[in-house]
């Protein structure tokens, strides 16, 4: 009785909300006509949002025939914003979910909040061509709750200041030992020749455990977040010997002062600024970043001597060459469509058609290079030159991380770092190590992982900075076993055994 009354109240409230929503947006399906406008909640990797109704937005609207309203979420706060949006149900027609292992995101996906798009993909030319491997990576419990973002399989590497290497007469490093020596020299031998002790080797940031260091640990043989042991157990990479060996090495680097000492307080933006200011000479990051560091440095000082060596083949000891995938093997998250916002199959098809059109070469060019003559120009050999860097950064760059596929066209750029970066990222694919647990299921993982990972992350930081010892790190792992770590291992291992017979 009571329950029924609450149910009615909720239903009324929902209906009310829906009516208001429908009134709010212009010509929103419903009465016959196909959906011709949509809202899109997507991530912003640049400091400022592009102007509403700007040139790229207008051009995209023209190309897709869809009236688009972007809701930009700053990438740094995406977890909070997405969780809040998911919790309150205030979603857009199209939601970019790029944090794929977040507890809340996964439970939202499996709770049926979003359309299962599997059966519709074949109706659209570009969506039909999404490789099976990417679709596999994007499935949760065998269901596809969104169109996967397609990215290069592994974009990471190590970028090193070439001009500093030259100043000190050093070679480009290709092993961990060489890299360590370069880090030492960059710190102690005054690579910028200004006579001051104001540089370090590695320039790391707050997310070391999840980003920079994780990639380095991969060279030592650790897996991407999870790995499968010889006896078929799926275990977190952070508990393995290879990972701890890498931690010991990195602690040595820290103790030597060869990494910025307060990296735990450094945000992504601070990191980029620090690098552009020449505070550090080694960055573990995407191989496409060198171009951005240079642009940033040049905007402050046009005569900066900054040059980069891009390295994608660091190896350690006798561990064969490998690189952890930072994109889940080329799957960068989902373009998910909430059932609460897009209610009919016809509207769903309209939204999918929109995504499909964004994967056309024309739309890809708009979101990558901008408008020819305004942002870039192409010469007879097809080499793309950005002609207005400022306009490109403000008007075009924000859209580039929202491209449903980054693999549509590879442009020849007049910027050598772009071409080299593309080439090295393509080479990476062969050595790529992906997370084996990605398509496995563990209820405990979905519920507890965020909490467990944070504690591992804290213990990692404390160990690297010398606050605790390896025994304490191991004690943290032991205490997490009872809090769900063991359950995750059991559930994943069972799921793995099932999948691999």
């Amino acid at each position, binding site marked *: 009785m009571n*329950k029924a009354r*609450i*149910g009615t*109240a*909720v239903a009324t409230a929902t209906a009310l909300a829906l009516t208001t929503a429908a009134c709010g947006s212009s010509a929103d399906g419903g009465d016959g006509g196909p959906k011709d406008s949509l809202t899109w909640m997507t991530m912003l990797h640049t400091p400022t949002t592009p102007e509403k109704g700007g040139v790229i937005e207008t051009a995209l609207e023209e190309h897709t025939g869809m009236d688009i309203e972007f809701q930009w979420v700053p990438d740094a706060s995406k*977890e*909070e914003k997405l*969780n*809040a949006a*998911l*919790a*309150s*149900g205030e979603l857009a027609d199209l939601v970019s979910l790029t944090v794929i292992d*977040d*507890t*809340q995101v996964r*439970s*939202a996906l499996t*709770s*049926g*909040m979003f359309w299962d798009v599997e059966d519709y993909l074949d109706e659209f030319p570009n969506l039909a061509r999404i490789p099976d491997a990417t679709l596999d990576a994007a499935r949760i419990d065998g269901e596809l709750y969104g169109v996967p973002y397609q990215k290069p399989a592994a974009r990471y590497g190590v970028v090193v200041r070439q001009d500093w290497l030259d100043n000190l007469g050093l070679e480009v490093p290709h092993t961990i030992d060489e890299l360590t020596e370069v880090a030492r020299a960059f710190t102690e031998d005054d690579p910028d020749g200004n006579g001051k002790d*104001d540089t370090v080797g590695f320039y790391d940031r*707050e997310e070391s455990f999840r980003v920079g260091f994780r990639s380095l640990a991969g060279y030592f043989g650790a897996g991407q977040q999870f790995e499968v042991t010889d006896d078929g157990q799926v275990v977190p990479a952070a508990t393995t010997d290879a990972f701890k060996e890498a931690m010991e090495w990195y602690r040595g680097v820290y103790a030597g002062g060869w990494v*910025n*000492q*307060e990296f*735990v*307080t450094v945000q992504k933006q601070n990191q980029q600024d*620090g690098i552009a200011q020449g*505070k550090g000479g080694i960055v573990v990051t995407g191989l496409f970043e060198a171009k951005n560091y240079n642009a940033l440095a040049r905007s402050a000082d046009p005569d900066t001597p900054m040059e980069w060596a891009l390295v994608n083949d660091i190896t350690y000891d006798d561990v064969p060459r490998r690189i952890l995938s930072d994109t889940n093997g080329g799957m960068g998250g989902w373009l998910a469509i909430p059932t609460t916002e897009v209610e009919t199959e016809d509207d769903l098809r309209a939204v999918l058609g929109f995504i499909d059109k964004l994967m056309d070469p024309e739309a890809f060019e708009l979101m990558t290079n901008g408008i020819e003559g305004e942002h870039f120009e192409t010469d007879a050999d097809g080499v793309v030159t950005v002609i207005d860097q400022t306009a490109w950064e403000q008007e075009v760059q924000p859209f580039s991380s929202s491209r449903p596929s980054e693999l549509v066209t590879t442009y020849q750029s007049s910027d050598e770092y772009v071409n080299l970066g593309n080439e090295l990222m393509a080479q990476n694919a062969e050595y790529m190590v992906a997370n084996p647990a990605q398509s496995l299921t563990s209820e405990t993982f979905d*519920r507890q992982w*965020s*909490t467990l990972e*944070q504690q591992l*992350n*804290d213990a990692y*930081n*404390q160990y690297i*900075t010398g*606050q605790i010892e390896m025994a304490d790190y191991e004690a943290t792992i032991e*205490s997490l076993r009872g809090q769900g770590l063991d359950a995750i291992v059991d559930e994943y291992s069972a799921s793995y055994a099932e999948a691999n017979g």
Partner: protein
Amino acid sequence: MPMVVATEPAPAPPRPRRRSPLLRHHGLYLMAVPGILYFLLFKYAPMGGLVIAFQDYMPFLGIGGSPWVGFDHFVRLFTEDTFLVLLRNTVVVSLLLLVFAFPVPIVLALLLNEVRTRAFRRTVQSVIYLPHFLSWVIVASIFYVLLSTDGGSVNNLVVAAGGEPIPFLTDPDWLRPLYVGQEIWKGAGWGTIVYLAAMTAVDVQLYEAAELDGANRLRQTWHVTLPAIRPTIVVMFILAIGDFLELGFEHMFLVMNSLNRQVGEIFDTYVYTAGIQNGQLSYAAAVGLFKGLVGLLLVVMANRLAKRFGEEGVY
């Protein structure tokens, strides 16, 4: 209002029936309506959401559809190690604030009260108010830039003086002093307003009498000013006690990082990390509810105590 007073006949013989106060002062009550509505709408109505503390709340299912779990989340809260850490961190920081930050505005106000040059006093007042208007983000950023070991001016000075750089921002031992220091820097000036106002109400004759009795400035402050503002101090103290577990999320969140989290994680930040970042909405609601109940209990106790000592209390 004057109208209401004017139409009221002066002391008249008792009338057969008096209009209820609600009707008599309808103008005043009308003016209170927006305030009451505000509290109903933004303070009481959201309390309904607390029921998710007794559910396994899933946004997609909503409050109506999520399963009920009774006191599971509270059991988890009280049995996990985290609880003791949170309680310790919160209580320690609150005590530090009561001991070090609470008296500062009183002392400042007493000092200001003694300044006889009006212009000087006004200037000092304005200058110490200003930090109150800066948001915590700005305050934390300023301190970050000053205290960083990576080119922060304070550490540059330390190094220039021949010392080792001090990791103010990451050393767990520095977090609490830093936190309390920032609270004082930002809030002390603003806090003087209440006390200064109370001091203006002190009868000047009392000072004259004290002076005649041979009391110097210090004695006058001790025997006249302080007793006069004691009720104000007590009320402010009760209010501060009510916020004992309610340190506020923003400040701590901004100065906390993974190296000082062990001493920095307090109930407010934990609610945020558990609820918003890690998506355990029900659990976070349970933590928040517990915190609120303890705060209520403390206010009631402090109020009783104040009344026993002959003060007025807040209600």
